[in-house]
């Protein structure tokens, strides 16, 4: 009798433990997947911000936006799968999305740096050309003014004085 009761208690405890363990494992997997999803969302947002920076420097970001939309699609799928309870698949999709987002971030950074370099070169080129042009225009005006002044004096000196008759 005592042995049977002990066995029953043992079985109940075992079942409860396994169930709790299962719930714990399930909850842990869910927490992990949720954490991965949050990290991935942050990566997508970072990639977007990097694209905006690259765009503000004049870069063409349409290709990067297409890829980031693909990453966002993966993230959406990961969210749906997470809600359905398939945490493993959710984490897999989130990791894929994260990889694409990281690539996009890297390419956007490269594009931004490239555009910054091009802009710097253009700035110096424009600055140099403008300064040279200003100097040429200034010297041209100065030389033109001197030539004009010389001719003006010559013309004035060649003029004959007008003799006016004072009739008073």
């Amino acid at each position, binding site marked *: 009798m005592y042995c049977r009761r002990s066995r029953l208690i043992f079985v109940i405890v075992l079942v409860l433990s396994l169930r709790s363990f299962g719930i714990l494992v399930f909850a842990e997997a869910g927490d992990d997947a949720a954490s991965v999803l949050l990290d991935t969302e942050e990566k997508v947002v970072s990639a977007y911000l990097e694209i905006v920076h690259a765009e*503000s420097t004049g870069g063409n970001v349409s290709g990067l*936006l297409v890829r980031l939309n693909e990453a966002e699609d993966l993230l959406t799928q990961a969210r749906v799968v997470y809600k359905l309870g398939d945490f493993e698949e959710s984490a897999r999709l989130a990791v894929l999305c994260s990889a694409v987002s990281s690539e996009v971030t890297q390419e956007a950074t490269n594009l931004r740096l490239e555009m910054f370099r091009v802009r710097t070169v253009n700035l110096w080129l424009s600055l140099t050309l*403008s300064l040279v042009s*200003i100097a040429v225009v200034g010297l041209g005006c100065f030389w033109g*003014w001197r030539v004009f002044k010389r001719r*003006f004096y010559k013309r004035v000196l060649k003029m004959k004085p007008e003799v006016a008759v004072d009739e008073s």
Partner: protein
Amino acid sequence: MNLEDYRTVFAATGLALMLAVATPVIGLFVSFEDGAERFSELWILGPEHLVGDYPFDITANVSHSVFVGVGNHMGGSSYYTVLVKLRNQTQSSPNTTASIPSLLLPLSEFRFFIADGG
């Protein structure tokens, strides 16, 4: 015109020419707003891709479709989120004048990026 007048004309012409050749560099430092209005478009079409025949009478286990379009004219790439909410006439509705959305939780959401002009 006397010589002083000619000198003024030369100086003014020279300054105008200098300003003209310096314009590309000035343009690099001074930004001019184009004055265009920034906005986002949102349109909802019925199942026939037309403005009408929206599914108002919803029944369970029957598929209904509407098409949502978003346009970006914000002057740069933008990140949009479209929240899908389903309500009956007694549930919380959005306040369009105060721009307050319905208090209902979204059934699903769509996030996407659109380039300017897209």
